[in-house]
């Protein structure tokens, strides 16, 4: 199998214009993981219905989380795709690139795009998220040297800027996943990085203090990186239209020609704002991924569903969730009736050589009713959060093998009281679990013992 294929080559047939009076059975807005898996879901149920995918980017397939590896020079641009070049052709999908969806007309079942109007029968909105730009004194859009880091064109422009100006140091505003992965990429290029984080720790949305400290240590050990917590950027200083430095909330000044704003991502709901589709932070969906309009679905970073553990609505912007949501949406759009059960936060990441996997509630706000077991030694940290003898969250840092088993334990709300003291063991495996669960686990859903 051909290992790489070229994103940069002008691939034939994929840059179609929007045809006159274009009509399609299924229309998908967004060509990242949710949109792509929606195609797979539709085709499982409906081999023939027409599918049109529109994307406002000019690339026909790439994996967004990999842009930091591109930035760091680990992967060439060819290696960023996650589907081979025949995917769209094999699934008989019309992919229209460089086309932005501007307006949604629900009554006429039409989407008005920058290149024309498309009529549809079923619609998936998978527009993803847009970076949050906090209000900072002195910020202007046209200042050279300020970047966000959420898509390939960001990465390309960043790469070009660094090369052109021979950048040696930079500031990253935001110590979340995007900020840290970007930092990792810059460090690999030999650039000195200062990470500015508003809360008391890195990855505050994902990890607890202990785990965050681990990562902080590893970053600082790189000697090219300093981490400034409980800080934010108050002021941006420029030399004309060129960035020259930032002032932090503590008053500290940092001279820099590079600022990356990674202060959060907001679901891109512009398309539904003027319609009566219900939205909150993101577009509200039920377990079938349906919005408040029955023939319109949403999936991925734009969708807001019910967190199985907390019971609250939340946007869980992570690849596996988007993939499954897209698949479920696609299958339901094509006539199936399946639900996405098991929606809760999960993360797998490797930052400066530290592998971390986390699920669910990792840092309960009150210990009331929550039971925590944890172990920390050398470069390994394990934490399990329990409530009523059921696992509601965990963190695995340093040693992550077999952690996937915990996803099932959370999803199926397994009572772990009988083997609670074995949860942290290095030998933890399926044998610890009750035999009926183990045999079911290895037997259900197309998985067989």
């Amino acid at each position: 199998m051909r290992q790489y294929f070229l994103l940069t080559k002008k691939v034939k047939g994929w840059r179609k214009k929007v045809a006159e009076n274009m009509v399609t059975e299924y229309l998908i807005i967004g060509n990242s993981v949710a949109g792509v898996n929606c195609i797979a879901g539709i085709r499982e149920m409906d081999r023939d219905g027409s599918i049109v995918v529109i994307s406002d980017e000019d690339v026909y397939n790439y994996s967004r989380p990999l842009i930091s590896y591109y930035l760091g020079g680990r992967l060439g641009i060819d290696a960023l795709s996650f589907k081979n070049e025949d995917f769209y052709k094999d699934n008989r999908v019309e992919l229209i690139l460089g086309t932005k969806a501007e307006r949604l007309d629900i009554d006429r079942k039409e989407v008005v795009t920058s290149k024309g109007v498309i009529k549809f029968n079923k619609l998936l909105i998978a527009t993803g998220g847009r970076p949050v730009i906090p209000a900072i004194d002195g910020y202007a859009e046209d200042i050279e040297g300020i970047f966000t880091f959420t898509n390939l064109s960001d990465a390309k422009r960043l790469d070009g800027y660094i090369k052109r100006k021979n950048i040696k140091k930079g500031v990253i505003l935001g110590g979340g996943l995007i900020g840290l992965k970007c930092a990792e990429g810059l460090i690999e290029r030999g650039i000195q990085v200062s990470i500015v984080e508003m809360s008391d720790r890195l990855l505050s949305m994902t990890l607890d203090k202990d785990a965050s400290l681990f990562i902080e240590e590893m970053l600082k050990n790189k000697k090219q990186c300093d981490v400034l917590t409980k800080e934010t950027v108050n002021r941006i200083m420029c030399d004309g239209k060129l960035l020259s430095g930032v002032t932090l909330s503590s008053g500290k000044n940092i001279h820099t020609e590079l600022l990356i704003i990674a202060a959060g991502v907001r679901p891109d709901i512009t398309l539904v704002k003027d319609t009566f589709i219900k939205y909150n932070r993101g577009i509200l969906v039920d377990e079938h991924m349906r919005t408040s309009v029955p023939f319109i679905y949403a999936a991925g970073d734009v969708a807001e569903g019910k967190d199985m553990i907390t019971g609250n609505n939340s946007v869980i912007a992570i690849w596996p969730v988007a993939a499954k949501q897209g698949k479920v949406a696609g299958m339901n759009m094509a006539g199936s009736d399946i639900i996405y059960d098991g929606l809760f936060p999960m993360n797998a990441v490797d930052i400066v050589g530290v592998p971390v996997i986390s699920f669910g509630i990792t840092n309960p706000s009150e210990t009331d009713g929550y039971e925590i077991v944890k172990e920390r030694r050398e470069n390994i940290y394990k934490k399990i959060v329990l409530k009523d003898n059921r696992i509601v969250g965990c963190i695995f840092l340093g040693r992550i093998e077999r952690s996937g088993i915990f996803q099932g334990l959370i999803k199926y709300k397994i009572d772990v009281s009988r083997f609670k003291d074995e949860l942290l063991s290095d030998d933890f495996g399926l044998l610890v679990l009750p035999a009926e669960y183990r045999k079911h686990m290895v037997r259900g859903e197309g998985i067989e013992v």
Partner: protein
Amino acid sequence: MVKPRRILIKEEYCIGCRLCEVYCITQHSPSKDIIRTYKGSEVRPVSGIYFEEKGSVSFAIQCRHCDEAPCIENCLTGAMYRDEKTGRVLHNRDKCVGCWMCVMSCPLGVIKIDYEKKKVVSKCDLCIDREFPACVEHCPNEAILLVDEKGERVEKKSG
């Protein structure tokens, strides 16, 4: 989708000898000869099998080559893919970047990791260049069997 043949586990017959691992390693080594693999200078591969033991219960588990494989769905680079001809779930090490999405998604936790090289190091491939999986062939007590897509046992043709 072509459904792969699968390995059926009968944990009540596993005797804990771990020969399945020995033969998996031998099969995936350059020489495929058991003595050369263990005593020679060739690099010994990691087996795709997780062996678990607790008291008098033990079994060996490996990738199930699931119909709905969460590892494929969640792979960022397409390194985890399905072989169209046989239906097996395979892993392309060159494409792997060590994002660990598959490790997080596998409900059985059967993906092994190379922490140094930051890649998935081993996952059962149902012995792609062999007609019959080595572990099944050499289990002394038939604790693991090969079954076809209908769930019926496939026996090795004696040659």
